[in-house]
């Protein structure tokens, strides 16, 4: 009966077994190893405490490059290499190829000795020093600052406190700035509950552990983060493009860092609860943060599917600043996917580039 079919099917069975073996190997590899990330060539041009300032090696000839340097400020609670995840999926690589002189501030990993660092220190000690170095290295008195998430809070505060420091363009990505709506998103609800005491957390841990912040972010979409992500990998083990992309993203997601305790307490109390920044009564070393002092050209990029910083937290700043040249850009994707997902190259990066290019000469 199976004299003619058996050999063929036994070969097919062998192929299937081989495929299963290969898939198992892939699964073990990507779930137990770190992907090669942050590969765009760079050099460290400044360090301060744990922070490092990188300059990415330009690939475009000096005379064709944009004159205004681009300064990237990422959030405090994750590693900034999400902006340079892997070749072909790197915002930094893309912008360097578009002719920008790109600088990235890596805040580093705070130690217990940094537990008292506040927004005040990051904005008035770290940022001005890094900016001075950028000006010295680039030879330009003007610069563009791009802040993402908490990096956008820091950039906004800086832009309001130092409007005459050469800031030409301000780009905000998924910026959590306005917490008027106390029901918008899980974070706002959690931290506004009377049982939640940020001082107790800081007193217990010093710096807020990365795992705790990570739990908070993942618990907003528990099924997607704890199960869906692995099922996507399982379903696509035959697809090297998806597997490598998953591997790189998983490397970043599991590379957790703590957040300085005092900064965390300030974030929860002064921003999430008291909404001081947007109301104009936030004090940074005694200086009031007045958003109407922001005059730089403003591009505010909002992710329509953002569950961490819902759009309503980012939109209202447009009416508060004095920038004559301002644009609110709504793009597809989530908080991270907007800039590092597969659609970023199509839906986000070209828009940022086209807006910035004509303002960088």
């Amino acid at each position, binding site marked *: *009966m*199976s*004299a*003619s*079919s058996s050999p063929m*099917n036994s070969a*097919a*069975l062998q192929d299937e077994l081989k495929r299963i073996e290969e898939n198992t190997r892939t699964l073990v590899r990507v779930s137990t190893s770190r992907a090669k990330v942050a590969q765009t060539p760079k050099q460290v041009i400044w360090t*301060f*405490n744990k922070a490092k300032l990188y300059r990415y090696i330009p690939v475009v000839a000096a005379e064709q490059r944009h004159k205004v340097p681009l300064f990237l400020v990422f959030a405090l609670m994750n590693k900034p290499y999400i902006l340079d995840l892997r070749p072909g999926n790197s915002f930094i690589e893309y912008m360097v190829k578009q002719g920008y002189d790109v600088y990235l501030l890596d805040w580093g990993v705070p*130690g*217990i*000795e*940094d537990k008292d660092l506040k927004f005040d220190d990051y904005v008035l*000690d770290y940022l001005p*020093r890094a900016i*001075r170095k950028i000006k*010295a290295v680039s030879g330009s008195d003007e610069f563009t600052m791009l802040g993402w998430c908490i990096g956008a809070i820091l950039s906004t505060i800086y832009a309001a406190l130092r409007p005459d420091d050469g800031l030409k363009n301000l780009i905000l990505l998924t910026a959590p700035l306005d917490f008027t709506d106390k029901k918008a*998103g*899980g974070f706002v*609800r*959690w931290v*506004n*509950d*009377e*049982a*939640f*005491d940020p001082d*107790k*957390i800081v007193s*217990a841990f010093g710096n807020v552990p990365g795992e705790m912040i990570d739990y908070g972010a993942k*618990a*907003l*979409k*528990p*099924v*997607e983060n704890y*199960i*869906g992500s692995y*099922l996507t990998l399982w*379903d696509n083990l035959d697809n090297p493009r998806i597997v490598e992309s998953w591997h790189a993203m998983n490397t970043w997601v599991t590379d957790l860092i703590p957040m300085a305790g005092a900064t965390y307490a300030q974030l929860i109390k002064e921003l999430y609860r008291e909404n001081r920044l947007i109301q104009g009564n936030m004090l940074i070393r005694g200086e009031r943060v007045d958003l109407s002092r922001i005059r730089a050209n403003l591009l505010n990029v909002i992710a329509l599917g953002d*569950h961490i910083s819902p759009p309503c937290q980012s939109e209202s700043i447009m009416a508060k600043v004095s920038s004559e040249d301002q644009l609110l850009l709504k793009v597809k994707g989530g908080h991270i996917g907007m800039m590092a997902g597969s659609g970023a190259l199509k839906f986000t990066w070209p828009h940022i580039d086209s807006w910035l290019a004509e303002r960088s000469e």
Partner: protein
Amino acid sequence: MSNDSESTNLPDPFETMNSLWETNLKNWKSMRDTSLDSWSKMMIDTANSDEYSHTTGQWLDTYLTLSQPFRRIIDLMMTQVLTGLNMPLRTDVTSLAERLTNIETRLDDQDAKLDDILGALKAVSLPKSTAPKPTNNNSAKAKGAR
């Protein structure tokens, strides 16, 4: 020959098994995705509810309150042990780190001053060395020629 042709007309058990497996897998996947979607929506709603916020807040508060005395005891014991062994305490390391940061701050200030001085020196020396021998001392003209 006739036996052979008869045998090829019989259904191949592997193929049947494969197609059955594929159909079942497809059905199972679609069922899985549908149930995951609805589960996900339910969990997101739960995580975004006031009840969840209050429960997790209270749980965290209880944990921190209950663990506080133990943390205090451990800290006290650690301090006594390290002091007894003549080893530096956490506070010693922290204050050393703070002193290093202060030194770094001063160094960075010096670096800024040095950059300013170098910049000023460059500004003074650049027009002379790069200008193509201006006919008079008008620096604006020399700059334009460049």
